[in-house]
């Protein structure tokens, strides 16, 4: 621990959860990670992330613009490492956050996650564990707090910069090597006998919106139940 007892646990924490930083949670250094607010070694952090991803409901990767758009050297490799990671998590979905512009009057929660209302995507898809990667820190922070406020999702961040106190597990300075280290840890846990929750559903699942799109169909989100 950091000498304080505040734990960054999955929510729902209520409308305005305190920023973990205000509760004494400090960011980790390179080679370390944060798990629920406590400093851990990188290795221990990766093991926690791997376990949560393999055992919780509807694991989902949320790649942000810094992964989705091949805007400079190195992005394609990092993107490839994210796909490798996805292939090791049975039943995983990939729902993008391609940019941060607001989407009103209505988002399609099976097509996109948006920092103005990320909880909608989490709720609709009943996601209980997710990984954010390639989201600019400012928007990641807002998103993480909203998710912690309103959902029970376990949030994991692979951050290119200093990491995120408001996610349940966070690794700072994460490039493609760290992503591949997480993939390797997942393989290791499986070798150690951990049976993934969706072991019978290998591969990446497409959401209904992605499925329809890949077949050239127009898909409409289901109407909200009255």
């Amino acid at each position, binding site marked *: 621990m950091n000498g304080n007892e505040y734990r960054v646990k999955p929510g729902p924490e209520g409308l305005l959860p305190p920023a973990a930083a205000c509760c004494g949670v400090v960011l980790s250094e390179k080679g370390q990670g944060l798990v629920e607010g406590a400093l851990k070694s990188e290795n221990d952090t990766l093991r926690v992330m791997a376990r949560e991803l393999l055992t919780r409901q509807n694991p989902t990767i949320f790649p942000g613009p810094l992964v989705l758009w*091949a805007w400079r050297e190195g992005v394609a490799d990092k993107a490839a490492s994210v796909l490798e990671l996805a292939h090791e998590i049975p039943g995983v979905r990939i729902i993008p956050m391609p940019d941060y512009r607001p989407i009103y*009057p209505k988002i399609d929660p099976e097509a*996109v996650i948006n920092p103005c209302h990320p909880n909608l995507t989490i709720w609709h898809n009943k996601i209980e564990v997710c990984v954010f990667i390639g989201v600019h820190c400012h928007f990641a922070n807002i998103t993480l707090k909203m998710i912690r406020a309103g959902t029970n999702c376990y949030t994991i961040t692979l951050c290119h910069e200093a990491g995120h106190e408001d996610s349940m597990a966070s690794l700072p300075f994460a490039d493609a090597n760290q992503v591949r280290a997480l993939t390797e840890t997942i393989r290791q846990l499986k070798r150690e006998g951990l049976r993934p929750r969706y072991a019978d559903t290998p591969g990446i699942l497409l959401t209904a*919106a992605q499925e329809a799109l890949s077949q050239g169909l127009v898909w409409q989100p289901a109407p909200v139940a009255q």
Partner: protein
Amino acid sequence: MALRTLQVSPGFMRFMPKEYQDLVEKGPFGRKLKLSDLGTYKELLEEHPMCEGCAMAFFIRLALTALPAPEHTVIVGTAGCGRLSLSQAAIPFVYGNYCDTNGVATGIKRGLALRFPDQPKDVVVIAGDGGLSDIGFSQVMHGWFRQEKFTTVMLDNEVYGNTGGQESGMTKRGEVVKMAPIGKQFEKIDMIGLAKTAGVAYIARLTPTNPSRIISTIRKAVLIAREVGPTYVQAYTSCNIEYSIPPEKVLEDARQVEKERYGFLEIISDEAKAFLAAQDAAHRE
């Protein structure tokens, strides 16, 4: 933003929402498109939460269509109805405080010029009449006097639409709006005259009655701002809600206002005229 930022990383296209797939495959970026191409490509703005039939939303759609290089453009906006759709368009949008759009635009324009000396970047302020003629007034004027090279587009609905109908400096004298019950006590501010005094290189006033005129006006304003100096477009965009105009009567209202008092006006400096003539000549070759 540049075209390179529009390449999806290998393997991720199938996870991208349809809108983004369309933007990459059939968006307006890096292409020279005309008004008649509307409907054949993916526009920068489609869905938005502005009121049904709002003339301002219609004008914004056309103004975005007119941008000569959307992949090299930054829009600056602020509080007010217009930003509801501008912030959703597929183009970088910076939200200035309600008063400092033109100061913010100045910094962005100068910063981009330093960062990208070989690549012209267009900065376009699009904000309401309250944002530009009232609270942002001094920054608009100073930007013009400093001859900052960006475009200012006023969405002139002659009222504070977004906050329920207070009068603005651009409301007509005598007009009673919902939160100005005794009627406006002074004349509509002559922003066109002020722009002239400040030496704005291209000044235009128009209504949304003629789509091709909107396109050509905005395009001229952006190109002249890139090369010559500040430009100003004042567009009557009405407000169905505050002026109780039924959506189906919005264009009728615009035609009437154009005929009775708004007209179409262009004031072009000699330098800007020479620039446009050179552009035309280059185009014909």
